[in-house]
C-alpha cells in the first residue's frame, strides 16, 4: 500500500493539514499523525481519547482481588494450621495479600492493555519518518479508497509542509 505524508515544523501547521484532509473528505481514522511529543492542545490529539485503559485496569484489579481471595482462603482451608490463635481463614492478615495482588493485577493489566492497544511491540513497516525525532510532525494518509494523490497533496499544503513524501507500507 502507498501512503503519502507531509512533515511539519509546528503543531499548528500540522493541525491545518489535518483539518485540510478532513475537509477533503478523508475520515479521521485514516489520518496518521506522528510526533516526538504529545500535543494535547490540538484537535488531532483528541480523537483517540477513550477510557478503555481505566476500565481494563479495573478489570485487572478485580482479577487480582479474586485470585488473592482464592489463593489465601484456598490455602488456609487446604492446610488448616492454627497460627497464633488466629482463625483458620484469617481475614485481617489476608487483606494484606489481597490488597497487594489487587494492585498488581491493575498495574500489570494496564501495561498489557497499553501494549495491545498501542500495537506494541511492532516491528513491521508503519508510517514513520526519522525526522520526527528532529521535531517534525508527520501527517499522512494511505492512498486508496477513492482518494487521489493530488487531492491529498493539495490538502497537506494547507499546513505548508517542509516536505511531502510517499511511503510503501
Amino acid at each position, binding site marked *: 500500500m502507498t501512503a503519502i505524508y507531509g512533515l511539519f515544523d509546528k503543531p499548528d501547521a500540522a493541525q491545518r493539514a489535518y483539518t485540510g484532509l478532513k475537509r477533503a473528505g478523508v475520515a479521521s481514522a485514516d489520518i496518521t499523525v506522528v510526533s516526538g*511529543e*504529545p500535543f494535547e492542545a490540538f484537535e488531532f490529539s483528541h480523537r483517540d481519547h477513550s477510557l478503555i*485503559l481505566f476500565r481494563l*485496569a479495573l478489570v485487572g484489579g478485580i482479577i487480582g482481588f479474586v485470585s488473592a481471595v482464592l489463593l489465601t482462603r484456598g490455602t*488456609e482451608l487446604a492446610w488448616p494450621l492454627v497460627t497464633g490463635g488466629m482463625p483458620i481463614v484469617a481475614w485481617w492478615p489476608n487483606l494484606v495479600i489481597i490488597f497487594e495482588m489487587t494492585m498488581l493485577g491493575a*498495574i500489570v493489566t494496564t501495561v498489557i492493555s497499553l501494549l495491545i492497544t*498501542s500495537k506494541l511491540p511492532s516491528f513491521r513497516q508503519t508510517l514513520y519518518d526519522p525526522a520526527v525525532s528532529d521535531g517534525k510532525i508527520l501527517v499522512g494518509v494511505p492512498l486508496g479508497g477513492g482518494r487521489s494523490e493530488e487531492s491529498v497533496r493539495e490538502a497537506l499544503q494547507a499546513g505548508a509542509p517542509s516536505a511531502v513524501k510517499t511511503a510503501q507500507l
Partner: protein
Amino acid sequence: MNDYAITLTDDLLRPLIKTSWRFWTLAILLFGVVSLGIGAFAYQVHYGIGVWGLNSPVFWAFDITNFVFWIGISHAGTLISAILRLVNAEWRRPVTRCAEVITVFALMIGAMFPIVHLGRPWLFFWLMPYPSERLIWPNFRSPLVWDFFAISTYLTGSSLFLYLPTIPDFALVRDKTTGWRRKFYGALALGWTGTTKQWHRLESAMQIMAIAIVPVAVSVHTIVSFDFSMAPVPMWHSTIFGPYFVAGAIFSGIAALIIAMAALRKFLHLEKYLHPVHFENLGKLLLMMSLLWGYFVFAERLTTWYGNGPSEMTVFWQTQRQSFAPLYWTMVVVNFVLPVTILSFRKLRTITGCVIASFGVVLGMWLERFLIIVPTLSHKYLSYSWGSYRPRTPEILLLVATFGAMVLFYVLFSKLVPIISIWEMKIGQHPQLAHEQMSRDEAATMWRTQP
C-alpha cells in the same frame, strides 16, 4: 526543532554516546567495592552465617537494618514521582526519572537482604507460593510472606513505571544512533513511532500507574514495619510503627534523591535542566519530613516514657543514656537538628546546603533502623537473656558494598538511558494554553469569592 530542543537532545544523549576515561575509572572503582561485598557474601555462604556478629539474642542486625534502610530509600522515586505527576507539578519534569531509578535499584538491593540473611540463600524460593513437593504453602499469616508480596508488587510496578515513559526516549535514541546502538535501542523502543493513539495510551497508563503506585508504596513500608510491630517485643509492638516507617522512608528517599541529582548535575553537566529551584523545592520537602520525623520520634518516646513499662524503659534508657546513646543522639542531630537548621533558612537552602543535610539524613536514617532493631533484641523482657552485638568484617563489607552497588547501578543506568525524560522536558516548553489560563483565572476568582 527549536534551539532548546536541539540543545536538550544533544545534552541528554551525550552521556550515552561519548564515554570518558572518568566513567571507566569510576565504574572499575565501584565494581571493586561491589566485589568486596560479593567476596564477603561468598565467605558467609561457605562458612555459614556464624561469621557474622549475630548471636543469641540478637539474630537481626546489619542485614535487616540494610533491608529496611534500602526499602526506605526506594521511596524516593516512584512515590515522589507519582505524587508530582498526579498534582501535575511542572517542576517535576527533570526530576522524575532520576527519582524512579533510585526506587528500582534500592528495591533490588533491599530485597536481596532477607535472602542473604536466610543463611541458605539458595532456598529462598520457599517463600514463594507454589505447589511444592513439601505439600506446605507459605503461611499467609506471616509478615515475612507479606513482605514478599509487597516488595514484588512494588518492584514490578516501579520497574514498569520507570520503563513506560522511557519508551519514547528509546525511540529517539534509536533514530539518532547507528550500528549496535540503533539495534539495542530499537529493541527497547518496541517499535514506538509516536502516533497520537500511542501518546494518549501512554499518558493514560502513566496516570493509572501513578494512582495505583502511591498506595502500594505506602503499603510496602507499612508492611516492612509489620515485621517488627506484629511481635510483642518492647518498643516494637506499637500502632505508630506503620506511619512512622512510611514517613522515615520518604524522608530518607528525598535525601537520596537530592544527593543523586546533585551528582548528576555536577558530573553530567546538567546545570541547564536541574536548577537550584528543584533543590529548593526538594529541600522544603526534606524540611517538612524532618519535622514530621521529629514529631513521630517525640510521640513514640513520650508514650513509652509515660507508660513506664519496665521492659520498654530498659530499651528506652539503653538508647537515651546508656550504650546506644552516642548513636541515638547522633541520629537526632543529623536527622533533625542539622536539616531543620540548614533548610529553615532560605540563604542556606542552596544546593550545597541541601546536599549536606541529605548526607546527614541518609546516615541518620540508617542509624535509626539499626537502633530500632539491635537495642530491642539485645534487651528483651528477661534480663538473663540480654546480650550484645558487634558487627564483624563481612557485615561491614556487605554494607559498604550496597552503597557501591547503588552508585554503580546508577552510573551504568545514566550511561545507557537518558537520565532526564527528553519528551517530558519538551512538553514543559509548550506555551501556556488559553483554556488553562482561563481555568486559573476562574480558580482565582473562586478563591476570592468562596474562601
